[in-house]
């Protein structure tokens, strides 16, 4: 294996079901991260930090105490921008910039080195926020997330902005969901539990897996599918199966990776995303940041099964260790 400096991390998002149901507190989750031999964490401010962004001093004290106790490095904070929060109007650009500057302030106090910025951002907002980001030494990383890829128009516009601005504090978080080569079996099973005809569910999976999504709607109708079936199938349209090698021209801007997964099988692989084909490309491209395990399979099974984010992350980290050549 080629020499690399890629490190492992976990997004606390992976444990959202346990947190949502009150089965685990933030501290419980951080303790589990240490037990799973994960050295670094990523947190969604609005998911697990009460009162975000008006966070109490006592929270920050606790947070740093926990990071020390469980020997964890804070890597990334994930932000959101919801332009619809005001009645009768969208947020102005000034308000959106102010919101990002507030995120930078919080990330600094959390001790992370970067913020995951959502797709609802604009190049202008990034340009207006970048000098504050530089002073705070917090980089702003826009997430590349399905159905977009690095080659999509908005992402290409961002590349041009990054080139022009030339700041190391602007870049991308790459979500590995853009390499979904096989539709999740858990997704198909969920559709069936919702009452979809199994033939239609299998047809949707086949369309996705064979890259024949252009035949999807017509085929569902031909099989007697309803509007509900067509609506459910939209989920498959949000996925993409991009070629991992297409990231190579952009490695300079890829500063963080959301190692997305939904279903770690008993064989120790994700059912949908071919990590064995992706990690070697990241190594070849010289990626030197964190792979942050991001489990998102709970939503598809929670109606019928107990979601176990801890076990899913444990399996995923073992796979990462193996593919990164850690003993």
């Amino acid at each position: 294996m080629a020499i690399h400096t890629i490190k492992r991390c976990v997004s606390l998002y992976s444990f959202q079901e346990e947190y949502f149901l009150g089965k685990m507190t933030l501290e419980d989750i951080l303790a589990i991260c240490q037990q799973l031999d994960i050295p670094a964490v990523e947190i969604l401010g609005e998911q697990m930090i009460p009162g975000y962004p008006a966070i109490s001093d006592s929270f920050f004290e606790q947070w740093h105490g926990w990071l020390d106790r469980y020997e964890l490095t804070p890597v990334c904070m994930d932000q959101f921008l919801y332009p619809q929060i005001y009645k009768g109007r969208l947020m102005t650009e000034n308000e959106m910039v102010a919101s990002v500057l507030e995120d930078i302030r919080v990330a600094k106090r959390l001790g992370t080195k970067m913020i995951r910025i959502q797709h609802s951002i604009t190049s202008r907002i990034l340009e207006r926020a970048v000098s504050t980001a530089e002073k705070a030494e917090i980089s702003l990383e826009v997430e590349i997330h399905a159905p977009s890829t690095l080659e999509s128009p908005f992402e290409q516009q961002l590349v041009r902005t990054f080139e022009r601005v030339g700041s190391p504090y602007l870049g991308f978080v790459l979500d590995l969901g853009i390499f979904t080569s096989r539709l999740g079996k858990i997704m198909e099973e969920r559709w069936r539990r919702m009452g979809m005809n199994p033939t239609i569910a299998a047809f949707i999976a086949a369309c996705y897996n064979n890259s024949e999504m252009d035949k999807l709607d017509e085929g569902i109708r031909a099989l007697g599918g309803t509007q509900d079936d067509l609506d459910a199938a939209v989920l498959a349209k949000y996925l993409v199966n991009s070629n991992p090698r297409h990231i190579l021209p952009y490695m300079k801007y890829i500063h963080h990776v959301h190692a997305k997964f939904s279903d770690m099988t008993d064989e120790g692989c994700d059912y949908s995303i071919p990590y064995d084909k992706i990690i070697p490309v990241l190594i070849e491209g010289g990626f030197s940041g964190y792979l942050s395990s991001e489990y998102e399979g709970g939503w598809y099974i929670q109606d019928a099964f107990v979601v176990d984010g801890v076990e899913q992350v444990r399996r995923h980290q073992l796979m990462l260790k193996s593919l990164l050549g850690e003993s």
Partner: protein
Amino acid sequence: MLYDCYMIVGEQFKNILKDGKVIGYQFGLRIPYFSSVVLSLISPMELKVDGEIIPEEQMTLTLDGKTYPKNQLRDDPITRWEFGRIGIISVLKPGGLTPGEHNIDVRQGVMIGFQSGGMYGHDIKTLTVK
């Protein structure tokens, strides 16, 4: 379809007594989304109880000890409904619900723009008034 099945919290389902009179009924509600949201992003709720549509004007939300008219949440872009937190929906109905089983059908969305029209969850539970 995220968190739909956890929206209605049955443990909180009961008639509401005030000054010795039953003035309505209540149930617990979680928001079907993966992070906290400010109240202004909570859409109008579509509630059916035993098949009857309940107007939102008859509902309040009690969250973290404070009570809000359910149809005025759009005006509050500051207060946060924390992720996983259980709010109480109270419905004004003199006499409340009769003892026995009732069918509660909730469709509640958030005005989040990943999908046009926002995202919503739908949960139906049969609950018992003792």
